[in-house]
């Protein structure tokens, strides 16, 4: 396992000499600023309106975490669905296109070192993205008093969602040598994950999923949203952490199988 870092290090350096990393990071930072500001303005408008109507009881219940930080991080979540496939599309696909896969697979590296190295590179990148997001609630700590625990648990949620998406994106990149296909495949899978609760709802009301709602329940459980929401609310539950570990582990295993299958074709 000692070459996981070697593989990851090369990948990160390549990511940062390509325009992709900068485009994604810049857009991410700009959008974060935009959504933070718009949520801040909405928050203020709401406060002013409540005061005008003399709803002082409600004003007391309004807080920075639930009414500003949560919706802000919720917006950033949606952008991840576009941003992460852009970061991960080249992880394996470019090795195949360059012919460097032949170098990797004929070197004394294990498949685990290759796959985990690639995942680690993606993980470092999304850690950077999460740090960019963390900057904005950080400002609030200077001027107000949001709850630290809730804010940190929300950031943890965003990071876990990002890592899950990296695992999905890595898998998409492992089954093709075309980066564009890898991008849209990852995007499609993530969109499906996003829509899972709606599909479940549709199925449940139409009765299409049968009397027992097990299929609908399973779909709801599989969707990232509900687990992320728990963390946004400040509820760090092992069941939700387990969900992320499960999905990340599954897609890493699938990537490993895809890379290994090159050998067995």
């Amino acid at each position, binding site marked *: 396992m000692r070459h996981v870092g070697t593989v990851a290090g090369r990948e990160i350096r390549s990511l940062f000499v390509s325009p992709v990393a900068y485009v994604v990071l810049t857009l991410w930072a700009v959008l974060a600023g935009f959504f933070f500001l718009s949520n801040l303005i909405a928050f203020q408008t709401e406060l002013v309106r409540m005061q005008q109507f003399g709803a002082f009881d409600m004003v007391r219940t309004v807080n920075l975490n639930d009414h500003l930080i949560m919706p802000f991080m919720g917006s950033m979540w949606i952008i991840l669905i576009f941003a992460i496939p852009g970061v991960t599309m080249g992880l394996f696909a470019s090795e195949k296109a360059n*012919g*460097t896969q032949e170098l990797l697979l004929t070197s004394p590296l294990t498949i685990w070192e290759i796959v985990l190295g690639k995942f680690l590179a993606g993980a470092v990148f999304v850690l950077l993205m999460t740090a960019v997001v963390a900057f904005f609630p950080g400002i609030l700590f200077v001027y107000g008093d949001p709850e630290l625990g809730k804010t940190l648990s929300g950031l943890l949620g965003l990071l876990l969602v990002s890592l899950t998406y990296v695992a999905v994106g890595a898998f998409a990149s492992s089954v093709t040598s075309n980066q564009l296909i890898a991008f849209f495949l990852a995007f499609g899978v993530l969109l499906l994950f996003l829509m899972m609760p709606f599909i479940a709802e549709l199925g449940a009301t139409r009765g299409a999923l049968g009397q027992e709602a097990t299929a609908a329940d399973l779909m709801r459980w599989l969707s990232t949203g509900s687990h992320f929401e728990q963390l946004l609310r400040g509820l760090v539950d092992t069941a939700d952490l387990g969900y992320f570990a499960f999905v990340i582990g599954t897609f890493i295993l699938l990537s490993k199988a895809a890379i290994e299958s090159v050998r067995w074709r």
Partner: protein
Amino acid sequence: MSGDAPAIEASGLTKRYGEVLAVDDFTFSVGRGEVVGFLGPNGAGKTTTMRMLTGFVPPTDGTATIAGHDIFADPLAARRAVGYLPESPPLYPEMSVEGYLRYVATIKDVPRRVRREAVDRSLERCGLVEVRRRVIGALSKGFRQRVGLAQAIVHDPPVLILDEPTVGLDPIQIQEIRSLMADFAAPGEGETPRAVILSTHILPEVEAICRRVILIHQGRKVIDQPLSELIAGGQSLEEVFGRETSRDISAGAEGAMENAP
């Protein structure tokens, strides 16, 4: 003891791609100090054989040992013992020549304290010292080929496998690469001799550096002889090549002939 084992020992190597029998029951061995030329028409199975030896694709049947390490039983040790230049050099266009070679040295398990030395030596041997800081993507085709070669020798492996190594090189560079291969196989006093296999379509190249020729045709070994014996009767390598590869020896063809009236 792996030090005494032949550099390459392949027995019954077979590779099937669906219906295509790319390599068929290929047995041969290469000793240390030998430079062996793989000859054969397009699609003969040269690349596929090299890919099996280097661990890129597993044989459908048969096995091989590299410097005494079985490619199935001890794949990491077998791969560590090989330097491999694939048909298209495996390069990262965005990396610098030096950075790339340092990376390859690392994943080939060259110890950290001698890595720098190893990179410098292969830069020097392949005539890359002047371009060491250049980005690979900005190099000419010939220079990229040299980087591919430098990558294959950076960890000083006992076995070197080169798939059409002189493609795209200028005549002077071809000379240098040829002498590099010869030096590599039979170095000076005190150094252990190594084995080199190269595939090529350039017959004079074989005559220039290979002591032994293995001719592959339709996935099978049809000739495995020292070059001196092969051209002893005054016949040229071209004549031998033409004669041996004009026959259809595939399994299907044999069956067809037997059934013919």
